[in-house]
Every structure is written in C-alpha cells, then in structure tokens.
C-alpha cells in the first residue's frame, strides 16, 4: 500500500484527481449556497426573464431590434455592438500600429521622434480618460445638430456625429458586393499562381492586368446581371435632427478612436521589438542580394519578426476586446450597457453578470484559438 503511494505515477494521478474534486466541490458549494441565499431573500432567480419583453430602446443596432423584442434579443444586440466596434478597432489598430512601429525604427529622425511621442502619449494614459477626452471634444467643440456645419454639399458634421448621403441598399447591391468579395479572393489566387509560375519558369509576364481582371470582373458581370438601382438618400434638416443618409454617432466614433489609438501604441511597440529581434545579419544578407530597405523589411525581416510579434499581439487584441466594455461610460450600447439595463429592470444581477462573463470568456477563447492557430502557422518549422 505504501509502495503504491510512493509510486510517482500513482501520485501524479492522485493529485490531479484531488485537485479536480476540490474545484468541483467548491463550485458546487458556491452554486448551491447562492441559490439558497437568493431563495431565502426572496430574490427572483433563473433565466426566464430572457424571454420577456425588453421595453427599452437601443440607440445603435446591427440587427433589427425593437423595444417589443425580448431581453435575449436586446443582449444579442449588445454583443454584436461589442464585436463590431472591437473588430474595427483591431483592424485599424493593427494597421496604425504596424506603421508607427516601423516608423519608430525609421532612419528619418523627425519621423522617429513623432512616432516616439505618439507611442508614449497614448501608452501612458488610462483609456477611460481618453474616451472622456475624445467624447468631450466631439460633443463640446462641435455645434449642436441644428447648427450643423455643412462640410461639403449634403455632408453635415455636428456634435451628434457625421451625416452623409447614403445609397439606398437593396438585395441586388448585396449580390454585387458578394461578387466583389469573390473577385478579391480570386485575384489573390491568380496573383499567387502567376508568381509561382514566374519563380518556377523564370519567364517574366505582366501580372497586374490579370489580377485587376480577376478583381473587378465578377463585380462587373454582377452589375450587368442584377442591375442594382442607384438612388441616393440625402440627409435633410428636420425639426430636431438630420433625417436620412448615413449617420456616424459620436459615442461610436469616440469609442472606436479611443480603442484604436490606445491599442495601436501597444502594437507599435510589439512590432518594433519584433523587428529588432531579427538578427542584424538578415538585413545585411538581404542587402547583399540587392534588396532595398523596403523589400528587405517586407520579404525577409517582417516574416521572421511575426514569430515574436504574434503572441503579444494576441494579448493586445484580447485586452482591446475587453476594454470595449468602457463604452458604457460614454453611452455606446455595448454588451455591458445593455446588460446593466437588463439587470436593473429584472433585478437579476447574478444572471446578468454570468451572461456577461460567458460572452467575454467565449469570445476571448475564440480570439486566442485563432491567434494560436496563426502563430503555429508562422512559427519556425522544424523538419
């Protein structure tokens, strides 16, 4: 018996089993304790409230949402708003971060200094303060909507945001858009194929006409087939607001700006460290092959730097996504704002917090999974 206990493998398994048991029983204790205390205090529990009518408006919505819809749909609206603003912020922050990170290493001292100031100013102030700053700037410096500035014909800017003429969207337009996306994919494939052929045969052929044809061809065909009608909806001054057109709201703008800029500063530093991590010899070697600095960066250094960049970039994306919850402070209806309202109208705080935690956890795990997959793809292949 004691022999068995001293067996390393048995012990390893034993500790794992004990740990799992401990976690499970703690979880069970907490759950049962909560439900009992709630019942003792006559506080409503359960998720039945999700089916009830929400009865409040949400100012920005990607899906069709009316106050007569259920709380579940209101929460979904909030989740989509969170995903929408974070996704856009990730894209912009990555582009800006890459440019600024490269600029930090530029040979031009002015550009280098500007990039330095940009990074330090944005990295060292809490995001929430920047959100208040951007929102405050938009709302206090721009005139109210009734005195909106007409930047260009039919383009208005005011403290209620930017309003521009918009095309009336029909299903035909969606089909053309899909054709355009297909064209983009096709053109990438064509380019890849032609470059591969060039490398294999050494025969130089002009690539761009074919790529352009692949890109625009499907869309042109779709235009002729579906013939989408082009009508423009111009914003007009109503009694209170500009009606019609497309409207970019200040809450969304301030949040997107705040998230993008603050994340881009972090990403810039990540990019810089990634580039610096690549051995100096790689630069020298590429130059000896006749590549100029730009080509060397793109073809030799950045692909190697990616290995160092991807893991911290994943963390940057994750924290950006979670930081979007600060939206509540400036009135953008993200998941937290909608959940807060829901918790108040139903009084079911624990359920609300649980839903928020699950959503944030779920999306964070998806981001991690994707980035890990990408990381494995760019990692050094050992054969």
């Amino acid at each position, binding site marked *: 018996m004691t022999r068995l206990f001293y067996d390393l493998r048995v012990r390893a398994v034993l500790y794992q089993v004990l740990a799992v048991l401990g976690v499970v029983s703690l979880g069970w204790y907490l759950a049962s304790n909560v439900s009992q205390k709630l019942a003792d205090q006559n506080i409503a529990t359960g998720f039945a409230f999700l089916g009830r009518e929400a009865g409040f408006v949400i100012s920005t919505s990607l899906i069709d949402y009316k106050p007569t819809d259920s709380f579940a749909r209101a929460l979904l609206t909030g989740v989509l708003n969170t995903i929408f603003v974070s996704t856009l912020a990730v894209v912009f922050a990555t582009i800006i971060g890459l440019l600024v990170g490269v600029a930090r290493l530029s040979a031009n001292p002015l550009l280098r200094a500007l990039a330095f100031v940009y990074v330090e100013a944005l990295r060292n102030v809490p995001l929430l303060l920047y959100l208040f700053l951007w929102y405050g700037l938009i709302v206090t410096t721009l005139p109210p909507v009734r005195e909106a500035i007409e930047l260009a014909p039919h383009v208005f800017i005011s403290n209620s945001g930017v309003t521009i003429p918009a095309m009336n969207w029909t299903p035909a337009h969606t089909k053309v858009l899909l054709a355009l996306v297909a064209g983009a994919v096709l053109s990438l494939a064509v380019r890849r194929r032609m470059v591969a052929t060039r490398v294999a045969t050494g025969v130089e052929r002009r690539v761009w006409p074919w790529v352009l044809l692949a890109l625009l061809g499907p869309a042109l065909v779709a235009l002729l087939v579906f013939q989408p009608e082009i009508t423009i909806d111009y914003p007009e001054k109503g009694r209170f607001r500009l009606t019609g057109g497309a409207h970019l709201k200040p809450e969304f703008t301030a949040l997107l700006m705040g998230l993008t800029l603050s994340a881009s500063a972090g990403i810039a530093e990540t990019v810089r460290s990634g580039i610096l991590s690549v051995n100096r010899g790689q630069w020298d070697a590429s130059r000896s092959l006749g590549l100029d600095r730009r080509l060397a960066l793109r073809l030799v250094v950045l692909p190697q730097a990616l290995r160092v960049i991807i893991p911290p970039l994943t963390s940057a994306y994750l924290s950006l996504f979670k930081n979007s919850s600060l939206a509540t402070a400036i009135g953008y209806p993200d998941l937290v704002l909608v959940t807060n309202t829901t918790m*108040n*109208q139903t009084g079911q705080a624990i359920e609300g917090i649980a839903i928020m935690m699950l959503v944030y956890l779920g999306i964070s795990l998806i981001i991690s999974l994707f980035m890990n997959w990408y990381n494995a793809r760019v990692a050094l292949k050992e054969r």
Partner: protein
Amino acid sequence: MKKYKALGLVAGVGIALGLGMVVSAPAHAQATLDAVKKRGKVLCGVSPVAAGFSYADNKGVRRGFDQDVCRAVSAAVFGDPDKVESIPLSTNVRFQGLQSGEVDLLSRQTTWTFTRDNSLGLDFGPIVFYDGQGIMVPAKLNVKSAGELGSAVVCVLPGTTTQQNLEDYFRPRNIKYEAVVFENSDEWRNAYFTGRCDAITTDRSDLASVRAVAPDPKAHVILPETISKEPLAPVVRQNDANWRDIVSWSFYAMVAAEELKITQANVDTFLTSKDPEVQRLLGVNGDFGKMLGLDNKWAYNVIKGVGNYAEIFNKNVGPDTPIGLTRGPNKLWTEGGLLYSPPFR
C-alpha cells in the same frame, strides 16, 4: 472614474453573493435594528449627486430631502439625527447594495413598482414623494408638448423606470425617437447641456435639480406632460418587518407632525398638550416606542432633530430653493394632496 467604481461594485456584489457572503441578511426579528444600534449609525444608500435630494454641500456635508428621511430614522433610533453614514449608490447598483447588506435602507429617489417589490427580495416603505416623469427641452426649441418630439434624441439614465416609461408613452402615440443612455449622471446632464440630445427625461423633481445646475436655468422648460406615476419611497430588505416599521413610522411621524402643526421649533411646547394623539405621538403617554423597540421619545426626537414634512420639503426642494418645486400632490390630504399618515393610535 465613477463608472469604474460602479462596475466594480456590481462585480464585487456579484462575487460577494457568489461567495455566499450574504452574511448581513439577518433572520430574526429586530436584527437590523440590533445591528444598527451596535454599529452606532444608520447606513443609508443615497443618490451620488441630486441637487435638493442628496448632495454634498460646500463643507462636504450631505444634505437634501432623501438625506432627511435617513436622518429621521437616525433620530428615532439614536435620538440624534446625525448618526447617518451616507453611501452614494448609482441607479445601477442600488438594489444590490441593499440586498447584500451594504446599506440598511435606500432613500434614493426610488420608484415603487410591482416588479421591484416582488422580485428583488425588498420591501418599500411609505411614499415620501409623489413624483411623475417629465421631459425637459431647451426653451429655444420652442416645443410646447411631448407630442412634438418626433425624431428627437432623448438623454436617459440606465436602470431606471424612465427608460421603459418613455417607450410606453411614445409607442402607442407612434412617435419615433432615439435614446442615448448614460451610465454616469454627470455625462448624462452634460450631453443634454451641450446639445447632443434635444431633450432629457427623468422624474420631474429630478428635472428641477438638473435645471438648477444648468448654465442658464431659464433656458430650459419642463414640458407639461407627466408621462408616468413615480411614487418615490425608501426601500428596506424584506425579511425584517420591525426595521420596515421603524423606517415607515419615522416618516409618518413627520407627516403627522405637519398635520398637528408641530414644528421643529415649537415641539417642546406640545409636550404639555392636552390632545391625546399628540401625547401618544410625542411619547408623553403610552408606550409606542417600546412597540418599535425604540425609546419612547422617538417621534419627539424625529421632529426635534429633523422637523415636520413641510419643513424638510421647503428647506430642500421648496419654492424658495434653487430647485423651486411646489408641493403639488405632496400636500397633506386635508389640503387636497395625497400625504396621509395612518393614525397614531
């Protein structure tokens, strides 16, 4: 950073509940009173900033109508109105703060509704302020009624009844509007003052507070429509009937005092009154204090320390204050209002 705090509080309360630390949910009668006496002060959940109702004056002392409701309870329990510790709670965390035992009572412009009464494990005390939701717009917009607000943008606070009232009012009238929701009341007021919103909505009493702090109070008009009933009442936990009685009757003592013409200044002269109801109220006769578990002079202490209803109304929100509210439905029943105290008998 207020927002952060509120979020933290929600999370904290969630975690505290999760950890099963709902310790201060006393089970036996008088448990809250015992806890309050032992602690030596009443923990009172109030609005963070609401001119006239609860706000810190220039010396940092909290004043206001809601504050005086708490002070009445303190006076009844301790004979001293100032043994109150005020804990500002945002609209979003107020009920959780009370449920988790962070405060003993909530006196925070809170509307009594069916759902709140029956799903939160809380009980409402007497209605201390009869209010209704109103809408305020800048005077220069020249809006005469709420019906003209089609396509307007309205600033609202989350987690309040106002958001749903607005929808209930506009939906059947087929008026389209846009609501911008702010977590923080400072941001909410500011968005209205800067013109991000065309209108702002909340209880009429609260609108008066917002107008009082506007850069130019005369530039704003409150529209005539009252779109909802907003009976504001203090809130206590459901499991302590004795504490609820103390909160209720501390308030009724102030209403009864107004009805009997007893004021903070003249209450001593009433100690020799021949009126049996006055004698019972002031503890000259009978043992009403004991029935509540308090000193027999509890109601005397409330009136002496805080005043009668008219006094706290006029001092905090009355016509001579910047808030400038008239009594309206908050007059005594004998004067055509709704205020009515059950008899002290």
